[in-house]
């Protein structure tokens, strides 16, 4: 069915269509409407799962760990400060190899406290061992939540998934979204079957301490599972494309085939960048856009291949790592190491600072002329 939904509603519908069984949450702007929607459905009897608002995001993540370990399908959502508070538990969840999907709604970090989007909060989770999908549209959020469960619960993978959207721009903006029927999603997403779980019939000791080489082996296995998930994510995305007609790839390459300069970025502002690319193409300038959708595991090889023939690359960071620069920049540089390209870093949009089409046109003009790597702030 086609409906007009905002990003928060899409995440909630994703959880509903995925027949999520446990939703432990804590409210924070701009995520709150996800949990309000699910609470309203529960009150009307439309949502059969368990729904509990806990005492903090840390407790919500802990409850998600506990619930998921019993074998129930779990969903939670948070932003910014809440996500940082959860950060203690996120490596425990991935280290215990517990499947679940969490929707993060990006919001800038304190201090100074702000409500509007940038990517510092989500990208701070890149070391936690979660698969990260960063979305551009509300439709993608809905689709990614459902695909996320299929990826996460694969017995060879067993890794939790973060589905990220931008606060306010996605979460409170309504667009046309296609929500498939329950039967269609049921065919795609079977009931979860977790083998290593808490069950009185088959006692197991989970989250067990490990020392020295044993510990290192477990962390190695976690890394290996992340690397193996490329294949699984690819298969799941292709299966979803067959079912719904909507194609998703690790990288969203837009007019990069013959481009002389390309913007590399993540998130909602990619839509504006797309429009800038179109405007410049009409004037005959050969430019393109590369949006990274799958951030963890990091698609290094695919990035390198996609940018092989392009010599001027603008990495846009809607985040700042104080004292170093943008967070995406060194990762892109690592993927392109050994090549002679001009890779510039542009910091923009912190705290939800509005970015216009002209801003992207300026960036593309700037990178075309650039002769050396540099970092510029667009304010």
């Amino acid at each position, binding site marked *: 069915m086609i409906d007009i939904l905002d990003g928060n509603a899409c995440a909630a519908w994703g959880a509903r269509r995925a027949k999520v069984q446990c939703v432990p949450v804590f409210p924070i702007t701009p995520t709150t409407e996800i949990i309000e929607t699910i609470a309203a459905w529960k009150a009307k009897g439309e949502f059969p799962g368990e729904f509990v608002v806990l005492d903090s995001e840390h407790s919500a993540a802990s409850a998600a760990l506990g619930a998921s370990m019993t074998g129930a399908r779990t969903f939670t959502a948070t932003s910014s400060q809440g996500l940082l508070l959860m950060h203690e538990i996120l490596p425990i969840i991935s*280290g*215990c*190899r517990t499947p679940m999907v969490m929707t993060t709604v990006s919001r800038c970090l304190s201090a100074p406290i702000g409500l509007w989007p940038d990517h510092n909060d989500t990208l701070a989770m890149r070391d936690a061992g979660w698969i990260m999908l960063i979305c551009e549209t509300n439709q993608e959020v809905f689709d990614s939540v459902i695909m996320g469960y299929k990826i996460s619960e694969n*017995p*060879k993978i*067993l890794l939790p998934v973060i589905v990220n959207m931008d606060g306010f721009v996605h979460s409170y903006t309504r667009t046309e979204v296609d929500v498939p029927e329950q039967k269609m999603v049921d065919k795609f997403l079977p009931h979860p079957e977790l*083998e*290593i779980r808490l069950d009185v019939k088959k*006692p*197991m*000791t*989970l*989250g*067990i301490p*490990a020392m020295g080489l044993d510990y290192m082996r*477990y962390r*190695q*296995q*976690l*890394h*290996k*599972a992340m*690397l*193996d998930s490329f294949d699984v994510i690819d298969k799941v995305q292709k299966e979803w494309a067959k079912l719904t007609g909507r194609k998703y790839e690790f990288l969203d390459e837009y007019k990069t085939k013959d481009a002389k300069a390309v913007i590399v970025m993540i998130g909602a502002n990619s839509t504006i960048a797309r429009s800038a690319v179109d405007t410049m193409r009409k004037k005959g300038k050969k430019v393109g856009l590369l949006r990274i959708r799958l951030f963890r595991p990091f698609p290094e090889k695919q990035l390198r291949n996609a940018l092989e023939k392009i010599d001027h690359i603008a990495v846009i960071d809607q985040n700042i790592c104080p004292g170093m620069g943008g967070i995406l920049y060194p990762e892109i540089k690592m993927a392109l190491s050994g090549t002679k390209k001009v890779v510039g870093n542009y910091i923009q949009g912190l705290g939800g600072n509005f970015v216009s089409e002209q801003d992207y046109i300026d960036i593309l003009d700037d990178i075309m002329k650039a002769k050396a790597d540099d970092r510029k702030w667009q304010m």
Partner: protein
Amino acid sequence: MLSKLIKEKDIKNLGKKGVPYAVEKQQLVERANWRTFKPVIDYSKCIKCGLCWLHCPDAAYDVNEEGFPVCNGKVCKGCLLCVDICPVKCISVEQERGKLHKK
């Protein structure tokens, strides 16, 4: 054992074994080498009250067919809580290692 350099592409995905969990192992870890003293029951005095079985933190007492408690020498740490709790004082202390102590 010296460390080895392993190429990342040679790492194997161990599936279930890559998840940190454990199930019952047949072999109990032995803690006998923690002991200096060992409890010894005088079965002629034992009244089978079960208090030594109940108060052992390491579950070192098993019960035989006649209902008498039997100390599992593999896991007993020699804490001697059973000696003090026995209502008829039928458990005596035997020194297993170290210089002879005055009790």
